[in-house]
């Protein structure tokens, strides 16, 4: 039975959204107010310019080039250097949010009453191990080369988790959750220990305390590689834990 007032609700929603779009649009594109509209700040005066040239000198003339060393941060991917090094505390908060969502799914999921399911077909059981080989290699490559190529710990962990979920869909009794979750705890503690080592040997929490390497080499930025590996493991385990709880048939409490 459709709601009787559905068309009235639609029109009211349309009017509200139209008024909001008009107000926000005229406020953001008004050039007589200070700011000259969106996206108008000079790029050399933004904070991100300091991240690009890797220095806070006001008259920096140096140009960060491939193959040099001695800068305060030695990863070639600038977004990685922001996520891991300059804004590492935000990354810690994001890892915490993912952990909270994984814990919430584990606590709230109810028991599933499985109906008749089909066994996995021959195509799946013979092709999934081959495909997963490529998936795990791709995920590890994206995690380990986070400071040279686009990617990093988060998409690499998600790709590995999708491979693990695929295996769990086909081979139902392949994983033991206990050992797997211990891996997540070890990775999480590793991130905190890396931060505390930065406090001990550097000047602040999560500071890069390794000597500067050569930009462009694989082993140039040890801190980014270690931190992204730990984050990748943690994200992979958490996302596959969420997937397990959605497809498993024996966990959870009874529905009231």
């Amino acid at each position, binding site marked *: 039975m459709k709601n009787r007032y559905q068309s009235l609700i639609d029109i009211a929603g349309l009017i509200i959204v139209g008024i909001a779009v008009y107000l926000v649009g005229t406020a953001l594109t008004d050039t007589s107010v200070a700011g000259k509209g969106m996206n108008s700040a000079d790029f050399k005066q933004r904070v991100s310019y300091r991240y690009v040239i890797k220095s806070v000198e006001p008259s920096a003339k140096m140009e960060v080039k491939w193959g040099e060393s001695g800068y305060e941060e030695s990863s070639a*991917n600038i977004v990685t250097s922001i996520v891991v090094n300059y804004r590492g505390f935000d990354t810690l908060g994001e890892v915490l949010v993912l952990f909270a969502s994984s814990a919430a799914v584990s606590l709230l999921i109810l028991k599933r009453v499985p*109906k008749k399911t089909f066994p996995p077909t021959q195509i799946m059981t013979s092709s999934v191990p081959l495909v997963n080989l490529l998936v795990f290699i791709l995920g590890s490559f994206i995690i380990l080369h986070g400071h040279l190529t686009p*990617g990093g710990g*988060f998409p690499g962990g998600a790709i590995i988790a999708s491979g693990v979920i695929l295996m769990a869909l086909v081979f139902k009794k392949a994983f033991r959750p206990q050992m797997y979750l211990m891996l997540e705890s070890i990775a999480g503690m590793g991130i905190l220990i890396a931060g505390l080592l930065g406090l001990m040997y550097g000047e602040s929490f999560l500071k890069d305390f390794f000597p500067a390497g050569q930009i462009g080499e694989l082993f140039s930025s040890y801190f980014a590689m270690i931190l992204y590996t730990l984050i990748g493991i943690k994200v992979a385990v958490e996302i596959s834990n969420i997937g397990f709880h959605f497809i498993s048939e024996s966990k959870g409490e009874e529905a009231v």
Partner: protein
Amino acid sequence: MTAFIVVIGTVMCAGGIAVLFVRSLRSAAVINGVVSLLAALVFVMMKAYDVAITEAAIGAFLSTALYFFAIRRIDEAKDKKGAGDGDEE
């Protein structure tokens, strides 16, 4: 280049409106995945490559898979075998 982006933007908005008005829940989840994938394409055109990989891996694949798992469990709890196309309600 501008015409290409206008076409992609129109398809994304049409997909966004289609999510609200289709009847079957599984179709809505698939169209959400398509909008996410087109957003990953737009991220590549804006020269944001890390964000494009992350959006494609997490938004387009894992989010859609989670919706399918949840719709499957709803179908099972409704005393109906989960082999039909989508949720009529």
